[in-house]
């Protein structure tokens, strides 16, 4: 790594002692010698193992559940279903007033994605829990499912989630989060060229080394200690308190070093049901995802579709940009309504464009619920924006890097969401990249600055 101190030297003092020093990490020796403790290193006498019975269907009505054979299986201590969960219908962002509650801890009457949790089995060994789970009989009536976002948004499509009533999240602004700035149609009308393109991604797994899980120990005083690898301690504790209708003072969450999160450990999935199991059995409980569950059950990065329409002038100025973004939330909200509207605040990218129109939709389909991941709401948008920039440059016969200099935002420029740009550094990054890659760029661009003249 090279630190290029020549840029922005006038706004930076190098008078610090500890900051800016490449001190060795205090936890590295523990990591590389295998001594760092992770949640799963906890093992308590009498600990039970929790395994989930999961839906084999994408969308189905549950006619009946028969757990009698599973309960008789040797080693099984308790079998849990929807009626055992005090507040079974929940949504995690309710803590910051983003509802409605739209998901069940254990399925009640319906399943909306293949893999949805239906019944939890607690047994003396992992094997007994697995074998007993296979003996739970669920009678399903299969329902039509919808997997494609465009199909889901058509009138008459099967309704994925009745708690929403339609297959998109309803914002206070309507069916999508909107940004309106300038006159986008006027901008298109005056443009030399129009380019409209569509971009698509599919779900992506966080692939942490350590799978999602927790170990719960009853403390004997009505308190429960939950050793967990969540990325958000109080967020998980407070949601668990709501789901279990248990005062937060009865819950003690202990984290530590996590074996990779990448946004995959901010849903509240394993802790509430494991604590409920510990409460109802009086025994320690562990619930740890298998690698298969981590890959196909835990929330992935959402698939997204991004449609970008641009009006561009022959001299390189983008005069109008319209972006329509679709986020595939799967069957439940989790963090997706938040991620979809994060996109609305991010478009049209780090460029100053006078006329902008943005709509971002959060769409429900019958697939594994998606949620947060590194770059939430932005990574796929940046792929779309920056490929679009390359296409626009080639369309008008301009160098792709020089084309970006012409449109790059600078201090003081008004963004589409009506915040003035502060602390811009895109131009300097591009200048340094041009130098590092020996990419020829005209001198006038290499002389530009993110500082505005006279500012």
């Amino acid at each position, binding site marked *: 790594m090279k630190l290029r101190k020549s840029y922005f030297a006038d706004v930076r003092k190098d008078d610090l002692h500890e900051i800016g020093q490449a001190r060795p990490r205090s936890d590295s020796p523990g990591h590389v010698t295998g001594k760092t403790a992770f949640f799963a290193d906890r093992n308590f006498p009498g600990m039970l193992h929790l395994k989930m019975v999961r839906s084999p269907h994408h969308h189905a009505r549950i006619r009946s559940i028969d757990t009698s054979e599973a309960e008789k299986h040797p080693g099984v201590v308790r079998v849990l279903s929807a009626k055992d969960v005090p507040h079974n219908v929940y949504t995690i962002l309710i803590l910051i007033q983003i509802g409605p509650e739209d998901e069940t801890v254990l399925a009640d009457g319906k399943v909306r994605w293949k893999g949805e949790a239906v019944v939890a089995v607690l047994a003396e060994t992992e094997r007994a829990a697995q074998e007993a789970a296979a003996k739970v009989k669920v009678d399903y009536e299969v329902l039509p499912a919808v997997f494609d976002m465009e199909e889901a948004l058509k009138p008459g499509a099967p309704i994925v989630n009745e708690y929403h009533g339609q297959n998109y999240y309803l914002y206070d602004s309507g069916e999508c989060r909107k940004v309106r700035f300038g006159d986008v149609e006027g901008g298109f009308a005056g443009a030399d060229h129009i380019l409209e393109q569509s971009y698509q991604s599919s779900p992506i797994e966080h692939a942490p080394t350590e799978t999602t899980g927790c170990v719960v120990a009853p403390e004997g005083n009505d308190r429960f200690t939950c050793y967990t690898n969540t990325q958000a301690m109080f967020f998980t504790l407070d949601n668990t308190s709501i789901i279990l209708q248990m005062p937060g003072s009865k819950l003690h969450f202990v984290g530590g070093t996590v074996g990779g999160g990448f946004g995959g450990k901010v849903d509240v999935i394993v802790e509430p049901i494991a604590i409920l199991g510990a409460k109802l059995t009086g025994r320690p409980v562990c619930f740890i995802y298998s690698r298969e569950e981590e890959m196909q059950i835990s929330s992935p990065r959402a698939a997204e579709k991004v449609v970008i329409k641009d009006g561009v002038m022959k001299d390189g100025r983008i005069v109008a940009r319209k972006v329509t973004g679709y986020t595939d939330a799967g069957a439940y909200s989790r963090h997706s309504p938040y991620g979809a509207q994060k996109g609305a605040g991010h478009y049209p990218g780090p460029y100053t464009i006078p006329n902008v129109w943005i709509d971002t939709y959060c769409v429900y389909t019958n697939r594994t619920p998606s949620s947060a991941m590194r770059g939430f709401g932005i990574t796929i948008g940046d792929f779309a924006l920056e490929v679009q920039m390359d296409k626009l440059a080639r369309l008008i016969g301009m160098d792709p890097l020089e084309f970006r200099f012409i449109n790059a935002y600078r201090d003081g420029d008004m963004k589409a969401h009506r915040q003035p740009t502060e602390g811009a*550094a895109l131009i300097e990054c591009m200048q340094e990249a041009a130098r590092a890659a020996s990419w020829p760029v005209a001198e006038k661009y290499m002389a530009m600055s993110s500082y505005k003249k006279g500012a």
Partner: protein
Amino acid sequence: MAIRRGRGVAAINYPTGMNLGGDPTQALVHSTPTGNFMVTLSSVDLGQGMKQIMAQICAETIGVPTDCVVVDTADTDTGPHCMGTFASRGTHRAGNAVIQAAKEARQVMLEVAAEELEVNASDLETDGQGNILVKGAPQKSISIFDVALSAHFKRGRSISGRGMFLIPRSYPEKETGAMKPSTCYAHACTVAEVEVDDETGEVTVLTVKNVFEIGRALNPKMVEQQLVGGSWMGISHALYETTEPYYPNRDHGGTDFNQYLMPGPGDLAETEIIVLERPSADGPYGAKGPGEMCANPQIPAVANAVFDAVGVRVDTLPITPERILRALKAQAN
């Protein structure tokens, strides 16, 4: 049929912290009887080294070596509230909370030292080595070890501080979308160089040159590990990863690392990292959040390089050999 070479560029920005704000983090700092300092948080270290960075921030603010600081975190019985470690917010939010707590603790420490030295607290400074000196008269000094002993056993003072950082929540205006998503943005520009085999559709990423502007590199070695890892993840997203390869079809999803494609060591490009620092106005010592954005620019840069190499666009991620071959076939027809 041939191996074709191309290169592509992409430039991006990225907001620091939870979108629209409203995501608090608190911190507590106190001294032990012998002048070590404990930072108490409930934030989670995901392996990126958050504990180490919080120790350096506390040490810098109090004016002691980092070795004197211990970070206790991720325990809801001891640590005050943190919204969580996500949205590139850990260093920015928790770092600011630690600075505020450490400043309050430092002030008490200087007051106790002032009583011991019989001077005004405002006339004192730290040497960063564990001592407090009178400005302009460094021969008149006291060790932080002795100050902490005095506070605990003689003067009955608690050398401690409370810190809180909260960016007030912004609510988007319904019709116009006027809002404040973030208070500071990191930046990046990446140039990727690829080879594409137009017979097999296979892409080899030869080099990735990344320039990142991150406000301030608080610990250059640690930010380097995060930026390099992010750059690899970007390549992985561009070319390999998905749980649903034929989305929206639900079939063929990988269930383990044999089926879920990720690059191995031999698939990773020669990676260059260059860091620029434009300190952010509200960042701890100017830092912005680089954790997420460092994995973004490689994806479009690789996509653009593939086009530069073989003249076809694959606008669906991941850019697999199958998709490249289908695009080449469509172009030939």
